[in-house]
């Protein structure tokens, strides 16, 4: 065990609207390496869910295999979790979502789990627009098997093993935009102030929401030659518009001057305020998002922040035209057509 949360809690911990304290959103102690970026992401998930006042038991956490996929044990201990098989988190999340459309599904995966073995499931979950938050803890390497390059390792980037990666890197955000994702963002585990609003916005977005989080592997891929190290990312990160997430119930007057912010109203009435800097682009424009990602890649920079949003899309349930009632609550009376119908069907086979 590398990180122990202190047992002591302040007696007057602040509670959210449901009366839960932040502690109610925590999980077991992490067994990841000290300083692992993934633990920061777990904490950002905890903060986002706590601050949004989502009842922990109404969340299902689903993961694949790898260091990243172990983290659901370390957050949201009151939620059901499912550690599936390698690369298959998206299909399990898809099925779970079909069974009960009323829960919040947080999928956690890594770059090996998503960009290699699970690439097919990742792109198809994106295409179907499953209503879920898909978080990739992206460190450019296979940590659990001791640091082999993953498919998101940038060409030329060298991990502790020293050999520069000879292959083209897969940009999951760009792929997701191409696959029609309605919400695509990139965060950095070293910048929680930036990451938490992204996760909150992803949670509130209806449909598939990808948050690709660069999360340095302190043990195998935090070298000076790696483009996924804390140093490199800090030096080469360029954020798009800063994002403020404004829940519906806490609508506030603009803290920023009119004209400098773009406001996007989400499905449930919550708001995203984007504060433009000179370098930003129209995040609702799919082509602009891809161009911005490509431009930054060419310049050796990592574009972070909200990269693309299209909040008017139908999710899988809309597309399949399923009933509003969660399928897992339907009764036999609603499911079994009975004997009369069976006789009617049999007649068509005479």
């Amino acid at each position: 065990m590398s990180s122990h949360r202190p047992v002591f809690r302040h007696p007057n911990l602040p509670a959210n609207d449901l009366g839960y304290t932040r502690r109610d959103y925590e999980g077991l102690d992490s067994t990841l390496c000290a300083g692992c970026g993934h633990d920061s992401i777990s904490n950002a998930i905890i903060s986002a869910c706590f601050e949004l006042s989502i009842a922990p038991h109404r969340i299902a956490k689903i993961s694949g295999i790898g260091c990243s996929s172990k983290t659901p044990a370390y957050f949201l201990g009151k939620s059901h979790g499912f550690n599936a098989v390698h690369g298959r988190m998206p299909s399990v999340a898809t099925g779970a979502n079909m069974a009960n459309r009323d829960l919040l599904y947080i999928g956690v995966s890594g770059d090996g789990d998503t960009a290699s073995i699970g690439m097919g499931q990742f792109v198809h979950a994106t295409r179907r627009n499953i209503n879920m938050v898909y978080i990739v803890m992206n460190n450019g390497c296979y940590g659990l098997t001791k640091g082999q390059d993953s498919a998101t390792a940038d060409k030329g980037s060298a991990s502790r093993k020293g050999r520069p990666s000879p292959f083209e890197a897969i940009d999951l955000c760009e792929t997701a935009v191409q696959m029609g994702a309605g919400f695509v963002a990139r965060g950095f585990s070293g910048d929680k102030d930036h990451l938490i609003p992204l996760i909150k916005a992803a949670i509130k977005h209806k449909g598939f929401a990808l948050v690709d989080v660069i999360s340095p592997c302190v043990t195998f891929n935090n070298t000076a030659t790696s483009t996924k190290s804390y140093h490199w990312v800090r030096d080469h990160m360029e954020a798009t518009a800063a994002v403020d997430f404004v829940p519906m119930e806490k609508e506030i007057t603009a803290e920023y001057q009119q004209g400098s912010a773009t406001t996007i109203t989400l499905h449930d009435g919550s708001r995203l305020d984007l504060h433009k800097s000179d370098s930003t682009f129209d995040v609702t424009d799919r082509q602009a998002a891809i161009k911005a990602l490509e431009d930054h890649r060419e310049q050796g920079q990592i574009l972070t922040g909200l990269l693309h949003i299209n909040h008017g899309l139908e999710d899988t349930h809309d597309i399949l035209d399923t009933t509003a009632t969660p399928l897992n609550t339907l009764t036999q009376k609603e499911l079994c057509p009975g004997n009369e119908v069976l006789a009617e069907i049999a007649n068509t086979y005479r």
Partner: protein
Amino acid sequence: MNKLASVNDFVIRFANMNGSGSASANSLFAKAVFRMGIPVSPKNIFPSNIQGLPTWYEVRICEHGYLGRRGGYDFAVAINGQTLKRDYTDLLPGGYFLYDATRPLDQTYDREDITLIGIPLTKICNQNIENPKLRPLLKNIIYVGALAALFDMDFSVLTDAITKQFAKKPKLAAPNINCLEIGYNYASEHFKDICDLKITSKKILDRHILMDGNAATGLGAVYGGATVAGWYPITPSTSVVEAFDTFTKKYRLDDAGKRRAAVIQAEDELAAIGIAIGAAWNGARAFTATSGPGVSLMSEFLGLAYFAEIPVVLMDIQRVGPSTGMPTRTQQSDILTCAYASHGDTKHPLLLPASPFECFDMAADSFDLAEALQTPVILVSDLDLGMNDHITQPLKWDHAKTYNRGKVLDHDQLENLDWTWGRYLDKDKDGVCYRTYPGTHPEKGAYFTRGSSHDEFARYTEDGRVYKRCMDRLDKKWQTTRTMMPAPEIRMTDHKALAGVIFYGTTADAMNEAVDLLAAQGCHLNTLRLKAFPFQDAILEFIQAHDQVFVVEQNRDSQMRTLLINEFNLDPARLVPIPYVEAIPIDAAFICRSIRHNTEQAPRTDKGDAS
């Protein structure tokens, strides 16, 4: 020449090109025979192709009720030039050869022991049908009309069938009926009394239906309460999910017209079963359907569902393996891969239907079994059962039956528990533990599902003793499983018989006939039809009660025999393999030959050597 002669007992083989619309014409013929009350068994022998390759449709008409393949054919409808010679050569002596006489047969077609029935089908079409696009389709209808005349069939049965088929498009009915009449009149005029094969109405079948196993399986999933299906298209399983989709669209809508089912076509078989597992974990009844290659791909997930104890249903419609094998031909060769699918110590309950009636029943029951046992259940059907029409008892649903959702704790039960719950804690000592659905209770019942080793409270463990406890409990659950599976169908036709035969699935039709044929030759056999795995003691008792036990199945390696030997720890000599490897449905003549060969040659072994 002795012309073949019979009433309601012969085999007709249609040779066509696939994609030419022949399937619907041929099934129109089979359905007409069925509606005349005569047992009929149509088998589509088709290529893995959409258009242009040879396809055959074999219809056995048998008023004695034997529905397996008989072997050989008495009447050929040879419409495909590509296979004309072969269809001609293989026709039984005394048989009848109907061909398109627009082009005459060359001099190599010189058999003197058959009757030629040349009808200039193409020419008739060109003369009578204006729209050239419709000609190939209606040509098939013309020969069906001709058959009605040759076999002295009740013509109105065919016209009624057409009317019924086109009830929604009456405009299409008229040209079809017209073509039936053209064919009928041509044959009546030119070939009157030439054919001594006849079909006469006889109400042998009364309440029966003519249905394919896959439709029955899909419908069983509807009645069994399945709400989520993840699937990936693969012959011959595709029509299972298509049936589920169609039936739920029609019979499973809410008041707003929204669907009470989610059918997701996945990107591959891995995702297909992943979707079903995710849904089942979350409290929905869920399934997927596939064939051999898909079972191979799903094996990893099946191991997860076994170890994490998730009640998922898999319908495996077997086809010829290994590898791609023959996608459109039938076999029973997934037995071992299904029984022990996935790495590590795994085993899965199997259901083995032999008719569409059982497909429906077992598909519905599979969800009860899966949820009661919290484990994957595999319904093992095959292409012959799944894709061919079979005469079957009308489907039945027990009105009093209620779904067995298994051990699931709801909010109030969690609230009032007087024991410490653990997801994998064997409270009832039957190996089956209590599960909870996500979202049930704010404070209680959450757990972490994993395919990694876990203790009673679903916590990760690398403690070998805890691991062993878990594996031993799963084995205990296997013993519970044994008591819940359908019992074998045992027929002790002769209590003094020294030989018994074990079989399962679609071998049943041919076996019923073979047993009668052998009995007529003085070779009496008791039979046992397996309906499920794991095996009950009654099966062992049957084996021990006979000197010689044959296991008849449609695969090379006698997989069910291996499974029986392994599970009952039998001396392999106790079970005589009768493997059938020809990739078309097994026939009674083969079984008779094989069993006679063994009964005449094999030395007797001692009984009761199972340990």
